[in-house]
């Protein structure tokens, strides 16, 4: 009996991947809902998979089944201990499988209300950032650090043998041979056959009877022709160095899109643990989002109270400094860093600022000047998240009672009208981070540049 043992381990795995994508697409609505609800409970930097359960409607596979609870029928069970004929056993409560399992074989967890499975990190983030886009994204060419990409670019006459393009070379060889009238083997064969035939004819008749001079002359002629052809055949090479063509590759400079994200956080005494935690979540989301859109993202951390310091990520989130608040100090430092290290031609700059909104009143004019003169003309997008006090009501966008607003809020509010790339939002609890984030970046976003275009259109119509 024949047998084969085959090692299939090297075969591609992930055959089910496209089925899985189909499934995720189908369950998208529920997934998005759940993820947006649960995202705040999880740290976004968690590597690895996200276990998620979704309602089964829409992903059920119904079929006709017998309902084991109904009808009048008998069934067999194993493991009788002390029942005798005529005993009665209480039916299991509705819903519980209990003893009577006949015909109710449910496959793959059917019958449950929730379907649980795992999403990979990429699948997860895809859904989190779905429908979001970065405003004002530009591909910028980094001239000093050029990234080269090789592309195919036609053929050359010189090159390494490994890049020999046989098809192109043979086309040229064929063309050259035709042009030079390279004799075909067939032609020589034909002549040889003709000679053979003529010689046969000569042999057929005795020389005395018929001299066949005509034939002899023809043979001589043919022989000469064959010789000529053979010479030619030898003289014209089948492949000549001039036929050869090699695949050519050319290098092109590749535009790279880079972004620098400056996180500015107030670490003055008024910013407690909760405020920092909320800011951190917002920054992380922004970072992940930028990372997906740009090839490289630099992150700069600036913390400030009355003076600003550039620091590492750990220091940024864990430092326990206290002091007063001079917000402009942070912005001035950001401005210096952007000017010195990140030229506008190469980098897309984003600034994310988080604060509780407290600032010295005397600092407000300086802040405004810094923003208007230096920062806002340069940055692609400036997000300001104000962490509202624990018991303060969060307000709708731009709609809260004026007296509740901090000085900074008022300033940013007024600047927003002029500078649509500056947006601000208040956040009170973790659950609001995602909605706020989505509002900042959703495709039909609240950025008022959009609003102004709408206005323009209506004006045109009129």
């Amino acid at each position, binding site marked *: *009996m*024949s*047998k*084969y*043992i*085959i*090692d*299939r*381990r090297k075969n591609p*795995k992930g*055959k*089910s991947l496209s*089925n*899985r994508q*189909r*499934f*995720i697409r*189908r369950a998208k609505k529920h997934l998005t809902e759940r993820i947006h609800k649960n995202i705040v409970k999880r740290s976004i930097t968690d590597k690895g*998979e996200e*276990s998620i359960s979704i309602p089964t409607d829409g992903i*059920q*596979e*119904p*079929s*006709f*089944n*017998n*309902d*084991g*609870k*109904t*009808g*009048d*029928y*008998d*069934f*067999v*069970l*194993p*493991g*009788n201990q002390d*029942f005798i*004929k*005529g*005993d*009665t*056993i209480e*039916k299991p409560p509705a819903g519980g*499988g209990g*003893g*009577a*399992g*006949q*015909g109710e*074989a449910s496959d*793959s*967890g059917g019958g449950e209300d929730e*379907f649980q*499975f*795992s999403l990979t990190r990429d699948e997860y983030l895809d859904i989190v950032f779905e429908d979001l886009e970065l405003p004002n994204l530009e591909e910028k060419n980094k001239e000093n650090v050029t990234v080269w990409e090789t592309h195919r670019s036609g053929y050359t006459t010189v090159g390494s043998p490994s890049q020999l393009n046989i098809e192109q070379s043979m086309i040229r060889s064929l063309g050259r041979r035709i042009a030079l009238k390279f004799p075909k083997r067939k032609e020589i064969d034909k002549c040889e056959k003709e000679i053979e035939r003529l010689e046969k004819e000569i042999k057929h008749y005795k020389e005395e009877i018929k001299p066949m001079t005509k034939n002899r002359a023809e043979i001589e002629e043919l022989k000469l022709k064959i010789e000529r052809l053979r010479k030619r055949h030898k003289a014209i090479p089948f492949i000549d160095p001039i036929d050869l063509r090699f695949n050519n590759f050319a290098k092109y400079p590749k535009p790279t899109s880079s972004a620098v994200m400056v996180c500015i956080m107030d670490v003055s005494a008024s910013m407690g643990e909760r405020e920092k935690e909320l800011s951190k979540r917002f920054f992380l989301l922004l970072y992940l989002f930028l990372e997906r859109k740009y090839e490289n993202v630099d992150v700069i951390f600036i913390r400030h109270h009355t003076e600003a310091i550039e620091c590492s990520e750990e220091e940024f989130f864990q430092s326990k400094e206290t002091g007063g608040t001079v917000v402009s100090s942070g912005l001035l430092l950001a401005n210096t860093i952007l000017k010195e290290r990140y030229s506008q031609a190469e980098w897309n700059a984003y600034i994310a600022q988080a604060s509780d909104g407290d600032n010295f009143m005397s600092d407000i004019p300086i802040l405004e000047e810094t923003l208007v003169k230096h920062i806002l003309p340069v940055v692609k997008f400036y997000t300001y998240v104000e962490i509202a006090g624990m018991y303060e009501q969060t307000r709708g966008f731009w709609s809260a009672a004026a007296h509740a607003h901090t000085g900074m809020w008022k300033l940013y509010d007024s600047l927003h009208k002029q500078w649509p790339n500056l947006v601000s939002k208040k956040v009170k609890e973790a659950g609001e981070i995602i909605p706020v984030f989505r509002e900042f970046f959703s495709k039909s976003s609240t950025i008022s540049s959009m609003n102004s275009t709408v206005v323009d259109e209506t004006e045109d119509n009129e």
Partner: protein
Amino acid sequence: MTTPLYTGADWSFPLLDEVYNACEDIALNDLNLNVYPNQLEVISSEQMLDAYASSGLPLYYKHWSFGKQFSAEEQNYRKGYTGLAYEIVINSNPCINYLMEENSITTQTTVIAHAAFGHNHFFKNNYLFRQWTDASHIIDYLVFAKNYIMECEERHGQRIVEQVLDSCHALSKHGISKYKRPIKLNVYEEREQATERRQYLRQIYNDLWRTLPKTKKQKEKKKNVAFSDPEENILYFIEKNSPILTDWQRELVRIVRKISQYFYPQYQTKVMNEGWATFSHHYIMNTLHDKGLLTDGAMLEFFHTHSGVMYQPTFDQKGYNGFNPYYLGFEMFKDIKRVCEEPTAEDKEWFPDFAGGDWRQTCLYAVENFRDESFIRQFLSPTLIRKMHLFTLNNNTNANHYIVKDIHNSRGYKSIREVLANMYSISSMIPDIEVADAAFTSGRQLSLRHNATNGKALTEDAQEVLTHVKRLWGYQVKLQSVSEGAIIKSYQTDSIPQLEIE
């Protein structure tokens, strides 16, 4: 003293080869098995998960439901709720056996004995498989199905293909002809004929013909198009008669029912098939040990896996989920062997034709000529009923209690055996639903009838399945559950005609 085949735990390809040969020797020369050529394929656990998601078939068309199954299996596996199966075997010629690379050599040996010989022999010899499936063409057919569906997706869009398939899947258990044997699959011919026919019709199409007045004969013919006999194969009926399906949609219906038909014998022989494979591996492993080819350590490991597979909780234990087919089947074959070798007076009375006979012959006879229902009816012995402490209960919708009808005593054996056999009949696994009537001329309503055995109603899913039927049929669909002439429940869809699947 023979040296053992191996002493370590790891397997290698040469070792697999040796082990296979040792198993083969016992299987063919001692057990007298008759098998298809074997193809052993070593796969990784990820590939095993992939195989799970497609019912164990090596290739399957694409559909989200397989992705759902995959995601669920993956989650369970990664979280450690369930282990993976040690093997998957495919009823094809050559017979494809998947061995998982994580298995130890002892497990691999068990798997080879179990699948490559036990299941393989069953596939090749059992009458249901011989009559109903075509092992040598199934892989070709699956390739065809996969490509065809992919083409449809490219041509008509993924969404609509998915919708048709969803609806077909809902009816897949009702895409089986239980009595009419299918013609053997011959993919190439069938496909070529179908395209040729279509091409021809397209070429000769001429709109003028439509304008010719109809002759009397033709008119009469048209009138005679009426529903004739009830049809148990709903998908078949839809494929042939649906007023709204297009060519390619009919082909999809056909694919789903063909594949469904391929699995039909497996529903009916779960206990026997698993039982026979388990019995085979148990016998082969023990014989290998007796011959000195397996070490005691390997045997201990084998018993551990074997008993894991054989776990049968009693009805009141946690995790009870019906009968474990491995356990029931194995015990029954083991019992046949016992009745042949050491028959008691009781056995002689119950099984006069083989008590004291040749166990090999009797087992092979059983494998060839029975399915679960008839196998239990024929071979379940009082000894086994006592061993498993079987008892029957009566369920009545109106009662609050189950009533114990019979227990494992001399008055109960016959009835217990009868009831258990009935539990494995097709109608208790798949509700008996047939196309009762179809109004071809007016209204085009489709009527289905559910013959409720013992008054068992359908689960709530039924209403949703009907909407799937309507999607394929296009017009109103009704379903009545009938028990002893009385309608116990009826369902129906809306009556808005839908002229195409959109």
